[in-house]
């Protein structure tokens, strides 16, 4: 029995390697993606709920103009896509997917707002690698993570959760997904939820 102990240990070690959360990243980012490893899936306490009025905010965007949630009231449904940090693996492969489904968002009369707690120069350099994004990218950098904190998705290390909020034209929150930070939310689920919103 004893002579099998070492091989068994090696197998267990290899198995533990093989259970690492799988992901891929685009060569568009070359060697510039920092891998933080596996993080605590959720590290915050939500402060909003479905059926509640979404807290308003006004944040600087990559275009230099401020974007406010209230400017879409009565006009468009809104998806808030918070991602934790620029230049990290899952985040870098999330918005480029949304970038090729503009038609789906438009069919549902919905605008997407991408938000991180990174500053504008960092967001500029990072999103440039994604090609031209059709949706506004907003910086919740200063006061640091104020909007993320208001929604209850600011993690203890100062980054936002990977979270999606669907807000209807009346400003009411209709769907919340505070996702495991290590995984990309299913696009299929998001599209399904979008289709439930009134146009």
């Amino acid at each position, binding site marked *: 029995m004893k002579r099998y102990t070492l091989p068994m240990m090696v197998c267990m070690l290899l198995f533990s*390697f093989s259970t690492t959360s*799988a992901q*891929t990243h685009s060569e568009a980012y070359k060697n510039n993606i920092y891998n933080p490893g596996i993080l605590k899936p959720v590290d915050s306490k939500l402060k909003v709920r479905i059926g509640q009025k979404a807290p308003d905010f006004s944040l600087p965007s990559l275009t230099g103009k401020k974007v406010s949630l209230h400017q879409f009231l009565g006009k468009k449904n809104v998806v808030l896509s918070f991602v934790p940090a620029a230049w990290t693996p899952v985040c870098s*492969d999330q918005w480029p997917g949304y970038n*090729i489904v503009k038609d789906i968002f438009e069919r549902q009369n919905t605008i997407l707002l991408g938000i991180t707690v990174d500053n504008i120069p960092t967001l500029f350099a990072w999103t440039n690698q994604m090609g031209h994004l059709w949706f506004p990218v907003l910086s919740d950098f200063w006061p640091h993570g104020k909007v993320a904190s208001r929604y209850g998705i600011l993690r203890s290390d100062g980054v936002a959760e990977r979270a999606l909020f669907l807000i209807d034209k009346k400003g009411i929150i209709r769907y919340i997904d505070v996702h495991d930070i290590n995984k990309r939310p299913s*696009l*299929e689920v998001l599209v399904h939820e979008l289709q439930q919103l009134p146009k």
Partner: protein
Amino acid sequence: MKKAICIPLFLVLGFFAQQSPLWAKTLPPQENSILPDFQLPIPANADHRQYLGLKGKGFFKIHQIKAKAVIIEIFSMYCPYCQREAPNINKLYQRMETDPQLKGKIKIIGIGAGNSPFEVDIFRKKYQVPFPLFSDNNFTVHKCLGETRTPYFFVVAAGPGSTQEVIYSKLGGIKDLDSFLQTIRARSGIK
């Protein structure tokens, strides 16, 4: 007693290895090596089945594709590089299909790493990809092929037995289609 200490020790080591950004993944199969064994579902689309020379339902392996060489693109619908490269790869397919010397001899498939069938379908429709694309939702094939970045291109040709030998293995897009096809022709013995 030793075992009682060793098991937790190895598990702890494994856990910390997973957390480490420095943990190196295995390399993708290199040229002149044998393609690792994996299977894909036989396409539901009849045109795609015909293109690949497959029949029926179930799963197939790469060596069952009717061709002298098979190009395998590892892509993701979330990959901006793959999105930019898609029209070029469509051109590659068209070029192979319209060249009498290549038609039927070199086939191409795409495997969407971590992409659900829904996501693969979005990519296919968005870029009007004419060749078969497969979902690798759980990264099974991606892990098997060294967890490559995307896009990654393998080209394989018949090896010993029912194996497939890797004759081309490269990260990134195909800049010069003519030069790429010349290389593949030479390495797979297509005249």
